[in-house]
């Protein structure tokens, strides 16, 4: 068994920043990741990092924009922390050598982004995430932080009291992809989940193949609620054939969207009369699909994003990476022709319920970055707000886990305060199907000493791997693709009750099929068949929770659009959706959003751009 003070799961932006912070606070830290850190999907982020750096700007304006962008489902203490601390974190990255794009006076450049009242998006060309990821990994190397790369974390080692709020996380159990060895990682001070996105729940996504939401699913099964899972961001500009992202930076620099008739539809069809292409992402994605659905799409599928008028010099200076992506993955030359784009799954606003320090309801378990939901983004994330979330909340979780005194949290976790049960009847059975599940807590005598808790988790993981490798059964790939298909068809930008129910049924079938899943590659060496099979279980749990939340939320807020419910209903729905695994019988409940900030309350206003 490996022993460390703090174990960080995942080595993208949030994980790296958390590890550095925990080490600076004096902890012995280890990172465990199924990928080598530089392979993490933070590296694919293009546009930039929002930070109120300049005198004419303020964190208060950034917070206001973020709350409005969230359609008033962000929690003010988390939103304000993001906006207050982003500037110092961005400067810290610069001091670590990150090669930001520069102005003539040598200062860090900023550009306009959607939904922002000031051009506050700092960037490094159209490869900001790549530069940020590598800069932070360099700091991890410099500090000699231990990294277990290509170790897939299979489960958390959590005690099994009945009430999740009484449980404690003592570590994780991980599978060494190289050797097939399963090992426990004891974490005496805390486990920080930083496992990133869950885009593989859908089939047209900007996310990596590795983004299977492992951390969210693990925390869920251990008893931490998933929050606001129905809020999925569909990015308006992805390449139609692959889902590769074309940065919002293109529109930030002045790129224009056209329909088949050559109309600048954002204005000409009245979707966003003030901000046009730079309206919030949810608004632009719906506009594009409406154009396509009404017959004004190109090849009935996509619209055009034109940046030719920006000129070669400006494009090469600020958006060069976009030229390469459009050429390599769509065969389009952005200098001489418009680029085809359509909405694609991009980001999960929801995730593991945490407070503004990254703490979950389980003692010793933290989450930061895309896998977490504090909530900074509420019902819709603004472009340029994901990267600052990684560094601000990665740092906060790292420090807190290492034992630094950070005061009382204002955001409550678990069923405390004004929570309320949901009264929604799902027509379809949800949750565990029985059979070969991986439920974390299974009743029985409460084992509480850390060694036994981790040891027990290791034994269960070993049993599961042995069973998957030895038995005969179905390949996971067909189950995974069935899930992705139904999610993309029915739980997309536009959502209807009947089709959401259909998806819950499809997911039930997929769960049944998964009971018969087996791994046909018998090898203990680099068995990706096994890893993907384990991931598919996580995808199933996430897809189901997402669809449940989408069915129950009968309103239109941010990225969540419902055909039968065409307005935001603040009286009923100014609240977060939570889903608890409840040992295999998922329960839906709600808690109020926190709109009271440090010095002001963010009153919900109608949202127009």
């Amino acid at each position, binding site marked *: 068994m490996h022993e460390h003070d703090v174990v960080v799961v995942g080595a993208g932006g949030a994980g790296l920043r958390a590890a550095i912070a925990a080490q600076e606070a004096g902890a012995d830290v280890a990172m465990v990741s199924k990928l*080598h850190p530089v392979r993490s999907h933070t590296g694919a982020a293009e546009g930039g990092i929002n930070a109120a750096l300049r005198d004419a700007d303020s964190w208060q304006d950034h917070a206001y924009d973020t709350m409005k962008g969230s359609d008033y489902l962000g929690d003010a203490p988390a939103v304000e922390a993001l906006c207050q601390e982003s500037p110092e974190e961005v400067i810290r990255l610069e001091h670590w050598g990150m090669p930001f794009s520069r102005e003539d006076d040598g200062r860090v450049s900023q550009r306009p982004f959607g939904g922002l009242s000031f051009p506050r998006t700092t960037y490094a060309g159209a490869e900001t995430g*790549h530069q940020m990821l590598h800069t932070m990994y360099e700091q991890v190397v410099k500090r000699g932080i231990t990294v277990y790369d290509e170790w897939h974390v299979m489960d958390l080692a959590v005690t099994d009291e009945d009430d999740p709020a009484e449980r404690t996380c003592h570590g994780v159990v991980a599978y060494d992809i190289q050797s097939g060895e399963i090992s426990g990682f004891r974490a005496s001070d805390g486990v920080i989940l930083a496992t990133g996105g869950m885009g593989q729940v859908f089939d047209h996504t900007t996310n990596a193949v590795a983004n299977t939401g492992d951390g969210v699913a693990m925390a869920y099964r251990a008893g931490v609620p998933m929050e606001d899972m129905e809020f999925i961001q569909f990015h308006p500009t992805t390449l139609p054939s692959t889902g590769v992202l074309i940065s919002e930076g293109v529109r930030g620099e002045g790129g224009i969207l056209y329909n088949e008739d050559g109309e600048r539809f954002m204005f000409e069809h009245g979707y966003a009369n003030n901000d046009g292409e730079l309206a919030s992402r949810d608004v632009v994605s719906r506009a594009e699909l409406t154009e396509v659905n009404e017959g004004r799409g190109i090849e009935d599928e996509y619209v055009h994003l034109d940046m030719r008028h920006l000129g070669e010099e400006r494009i090469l200076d600020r958006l060069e990476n976009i030229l390469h992506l459009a050429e390599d*993955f769509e065969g389009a030359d952005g200098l001489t022709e418009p680029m085809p784009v359509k909405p694609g799954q991009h980001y999960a606003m929801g995730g593991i319920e945490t407070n503004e320090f990254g703490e979950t309801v389980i003692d010793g378990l933290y989450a930061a970055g895309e896998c977490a939901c504090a909530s900074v983004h509420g019902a819709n994330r603004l472009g340029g707000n994901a990267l600052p979330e990684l560094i601000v909340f990665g740092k906060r979780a790292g420090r807190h886990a290492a034992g630094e005194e950070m005061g009382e949290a204002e955001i409550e976790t678990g069923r405390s305060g004004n929570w309320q049960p949901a009264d929604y009847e799902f027509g379809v059975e949800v949750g565990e199907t029985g059979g070969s599940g991986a439920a974390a807590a299974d009743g029985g005598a409460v084992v509480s000493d850390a060694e036994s808790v981790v040891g027990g988790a290791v034994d269960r993981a070993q049993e599961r791997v042995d069973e998957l490798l030895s038995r005969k059964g179905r390949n996971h790939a067909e189950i995974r693709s069935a899930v992705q298909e139904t999610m993309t068809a029915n739980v997309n930008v536009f959502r209807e009750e009947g089709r959401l129910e259909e998806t819950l049924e499809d997911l039930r079938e997929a769960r049944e099929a998964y009971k018969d899943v087996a791994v046909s*590659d018998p*090898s203990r060496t680099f068995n990706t068949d096994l890893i993907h099979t384990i991931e598919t279980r996580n995808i199933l749990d996430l897809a189901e929770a997402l669809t449940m939340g989408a069915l129950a939320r009968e309103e239109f807020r941010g990225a969540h659009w419902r055909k039968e419910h065409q307005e935001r209903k603040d009286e009923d729905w100014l609240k977060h959706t939570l889903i608890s695994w409840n040992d295999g019988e998922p329960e839906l409940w709600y808690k109020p959003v926190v709109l009271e900030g440090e010095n002001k309350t963010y009153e919900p206003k109608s949202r127009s751009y």
Partner: protein
Amino acid sequence: MSTQIPKQTEESSETEAETQPASKGEERRAEKRRRAAERREQRQEEEAEKAAADDSTVELKVFRYDPQVEGKQEPRFDTFHVPFTKGMTVLDALMYARDTYDSSLTFRHSCRQAVCGSDAMFVNGGQKLACKTQISDLEEPIRVEPLPHAEVTKDLVVDMEHFYEQMEAVEPYFQTDEYPDGELEEQRQDRENREKIKMSTRCIWCGACMSSCNIAAGDNEYLGPAAINKAYRFAMDEREGEEMKQKRLEIIEQEHGVWRCQTQFSCTEVCPKDIPLTEHIQELKREAVKNNLKFW
């Protein structure tokens, strides 16, 4: 011919499955599983036959090796026929082959957009990123092998440890003693200097350059093009200051550093991010000479 999992292992796992069931329910489930597996195999065979007969398929010959699995311990090539779709990349074809014909086919991949650097491999005799290599640009049959000059872990996966060690040997992190006074004050960097290091910062650690380099193949301690490029990225960054630059030049001037490079340009040719690696190495050589003259 399409490839299935080696017969031997299939038979052995079947007997295991048959000896285990005890209760009636389990037997029924086992029977159901067996039938599902049969159906799947039949479907796979049909798809493979259809694919082989079809003109619009691509033929891939893929290197296979697994130190643990009988039948794969001796390296061999398997042939896959994959239906061609417009815009298909080598990675798409490999994923199709894995998900349709043989789930044990193993390769690293993640982002699918040439930024994570996981899927460098040897395609038709050249180091390529599978995700940005179009099938339509290649001669058939397409030969896919693991990166040369690295130890093969399994199929197309190679051991990257040595590559990572070389990268980390050049103190690959920003170092300076002089920061601006104000806490929220960035270091100034002029646009020219940022432009100077820009290409060098695009490295995605894929290992294609190292694999293509004859010198690295013969001298295991040679830092190699990627690590030297990383050193270049910092040595040329004016924010680090003159003193650090001296130190950086000492690192790359070591016995297995820049002077080993024989300017063959193979690294530059294979770099999927178009980094002018050889030029960077040459420039560091010149800087080192200038520097040495200064202290003569």
